[in-house]
């Protein structure tokens, strides 16, 4: 199979592909070939032009310059089904209340419009799933399936209409480790069947696991490409960022002895009997798979969801645990989903910064009245956090993702917290901003603050924390100190199906 792929003509070729919006070039001079059975990784930071390239390849956008060749022939614009090219986008396009079979055949239902042949649709879906070696009930509704199976249905649906080139855009972001492995196995099957795959991902490990070749985009330009086997991961990352990365493991001071926050027997629907303590000057990581209950614990500690058990701040029990009670004790929580749970998108940067601690921003002579001083204080915060924005009166929705995250960080740092809980603090920010945020967090710990980081990004926890707690299905199943960090052990502990009592101190 692999031999034929080298001699066969490329199924899809791209020559000097460029795209400009309103005079601004976002993709500039991208060229590559892909052969049947080959997998190319398309890598780059946020805004590097990956999505625009993808949209040109699947026909959603018309290139400004350059040409696309399908099977050696130039085509003016891609037509997915006709040219055999399909894409699975980050946002799935499935209908939750319809069945697997209905979803797979929805764009081309057998029978007549007024009299659809549902039995035939079911047969088509079954045959396709069987062909791909996937066991999913075609009569199940999409919403009854997990994220991993939904992804697989989406892929099976895409291949039903176009099976020469498959574009996968960040297919693993919502999958658990096990689901991810299953997806990779399916990708291997497809490769063996001669499907050419373009794989877009942030995760280097996945690129190396899945792809044969790679293309690196930076600021819309193709800055590298070739066989992955020839390029170490470090070099690939440096190509993406465009500078050499110094050792990302951050120097940490030893933590203090004084207890800052401790949790005893915390129990709710999503987790059970959770105990841990974080000390002043310590950075504690909480690791685990999706659905292990990490975010739920963080939210329960901050009074955002009900839980039984005991939460102590500086040795004093907080009861009842409410957001206000935790804020009064100088605890803060920076949530994972900044657009849904963090930012007031149509309000100005100024109001977003002062939202959690208006009294730290204003001078008042009458209780609850007046905003004198708010502007100056917000201006200081914008400078201190290095937020790039024309004016503090701009809406937060006008800002880039990295700057939005800095606004959220600024809001909570303005509350002058002693204990900080960060949920996925670097999700969706590019590598440069990620290091800045890690440096800020390390600085907080050096200043004697206690920090908890909840993250799915294990390398992030390995680099930035003193200690990692591992969670599985709502239970704390392990604890590792920095000197004993071992990513393989941590991952297997988080993912293993056995009972979780092997506490590794």
């Amino acid at each position: 199979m692999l031999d034929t792929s080298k001699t066969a003509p490329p199924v899809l070729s791209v020559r000097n592909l460029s795209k400009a919006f309103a005079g601004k070039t976002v993709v500039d001079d991208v060229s590559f070939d892909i052969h049947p059975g080959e997998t190319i990784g398309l890598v780059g930071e946020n805004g590097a032009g990956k999505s625009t390239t993808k949209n040109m390849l699947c026909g959603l956008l018309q290139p400004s310059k350059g040409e696309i060749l399908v099977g050696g022939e130039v085509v003016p614009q891609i037509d997915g089904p006709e040219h055999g090219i399909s894409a699975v986008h980050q946002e799935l396009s499935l209908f939750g209340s319809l069945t697997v079979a209905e979803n797979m055949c929805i764009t081309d239902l057998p029978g007549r419009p007024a009299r659809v042949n549902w039995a035939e649709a079911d047969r088509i879906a079954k045959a396709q799933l069987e062909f791909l070696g996937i066991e999913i009930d075609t009569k199940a509704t999409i919403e009854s399936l997990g994220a991993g199976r939904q992804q697989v249905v989406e892929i099976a649906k895409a291949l039903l209409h176009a099976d020469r080139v498959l574009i996968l855009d960040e297919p693993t972001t919502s999958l658990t480790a096990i689901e991810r492995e299953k997806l990779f196995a399916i990708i291997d099957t497809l490769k063996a069947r001669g499907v050419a795959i373009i794989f877009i991902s942030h995760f280097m490990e996945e690129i190396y696991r899945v792809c044969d070749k790679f293309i690196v985009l930076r600021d819309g330009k193709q800055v590298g490409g070739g066989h992955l086997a020839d390029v170490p991961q470090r070099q690939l990352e440096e190509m993406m960022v465009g500078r050499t990365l110094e050792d990302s493991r951050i120097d940490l001071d030893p933590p203090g002895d004084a207890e800052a926050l401790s949790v005893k027997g915390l129990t709710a629907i999503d987790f059970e009997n959770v105990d841990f303590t974080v000390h002043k000057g310590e950075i504690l990581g909480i690791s685990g798979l999706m659905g292990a209950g990490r975010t739920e614990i963080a939210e329960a500690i901050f009074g955002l969801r009900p839980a039984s058990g005991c939460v102590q701040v500086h040795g004093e029990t907080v009861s009842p645990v409410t957001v206000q009670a935790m804020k009064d004790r100088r605890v803060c929580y920076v949530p994972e989903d900044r657009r849904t749970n963090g930012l007031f998108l149509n309000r100005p940067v100024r109001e977003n910064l002062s939202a959690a601690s208006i009294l730290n921003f204003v001078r008042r002579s009458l209780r609850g009245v007046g905003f004198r001083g708010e502007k100056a204080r917000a201006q200081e915060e914008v400078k201190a956090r290095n937020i790039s924005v024309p004016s503090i009166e701009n809406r937060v929705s006008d800002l880039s993702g990295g700057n939005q995250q800095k606004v959220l960080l600024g809001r909570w740092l303005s509350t002058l917290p002693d204990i900080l809980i960060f949920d996925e603090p670097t999700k969706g920010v590019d590598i440069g901003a990620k290091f800045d945020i890690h440096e800020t967090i390390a600085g907080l710990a050096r200043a004697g603050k206690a920090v908890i980081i909840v993250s799915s990004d294990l390398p992030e926890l390995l680099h930035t924390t003193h200690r990692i707690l591992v969670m599985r299905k709502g239970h704390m199943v392990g604890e590792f100190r920095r000197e004993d960090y071992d990513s393989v052990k941590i991952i297997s502990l988080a993912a293993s199906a056995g009972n979780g009592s092997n506490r590794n101190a």
Partner: protein
Amino acid sequence: MTSPTLASLKTYPAIPIIAALAVAFSLFSPYFLTSGNIEAMLGANAVVLIAAIGMTFVFLTGGIDLSISTVISASAVISGLVMAQTDNVPLGIGTAIAVGTIFGAVNGVLIGYFKLTPFITTMATQLIARGIAFVLSQGIAVKGTPYWVLDFGFMSWFGIPAVTLVGLGLVILSAAALGMTTWGRQVMLVGSNPNAARYTGINVRFIEFSVYLLAGVLAGIAGFISIANLGNAIPGVGDTLLLMIIGAVVLGGTAMTGGEGSVERTVLGVLLLAILTNGLNLVGIPFYDQLIIQGILIFVGAWLAMKFSGQRNA
């Protein structure tokens, strides 16, 4: 890039329409710009102005209060009955406000604390308030309004009716509450993103409760003003007002989705509808033809509000 003119259009999308209408009507009717006409126009819209302030706060949190219109009727009728019995004007004012407060509190508790949907909840209270107004008045105007109240309805200072001055006083108070207090800021933030407000430690339930309570209180005051305007408490007085109130708030440029708008914008929205109705009457356009024009104008206003506030791509 943004000139001061464009910036104020962004904030007050009603201004160009008001200007155009004022010019057009003054060309068509010599009576339009007389002090007598302006005074009549202002007085006739005091009830809508006061009620629209309350609706503005509800809209700012992303909610809606359909009961405002008939709470005006219920508080007018009950206040009218109390005054007919006692001839006590302060007691009548107190009664009108109390009735509005009770309805507002019921809406506020159900929506803020029991998390019922605003649309359904206030639709139910709308029916109840309307029923109460008609049952207690037996469907006819309540007679026996004290003379002071009748006089008050005709009073005016420097060409501005007293009822309008009450409205403007409430405008100033509520604009200050919205723009200058922590409570007002929290109303805006809750409307912008209720989840984020909760994660930030804002008492979202209380804020939601408080805007419906405020809307109720203002509807109560509007009910009393309607007695002064019309001379009697009329059980159907609020029935036709709901769309005027919502139209005024939306045309003024306050978004129904929350977190965007102001009391000042609503004042302009009320003025716009007032000029439109008054002008069309003067020009002699029949009532039902006016409805068509009003509808078209709401399209234009909504389009302008969207265009200037740059929400098209949001």
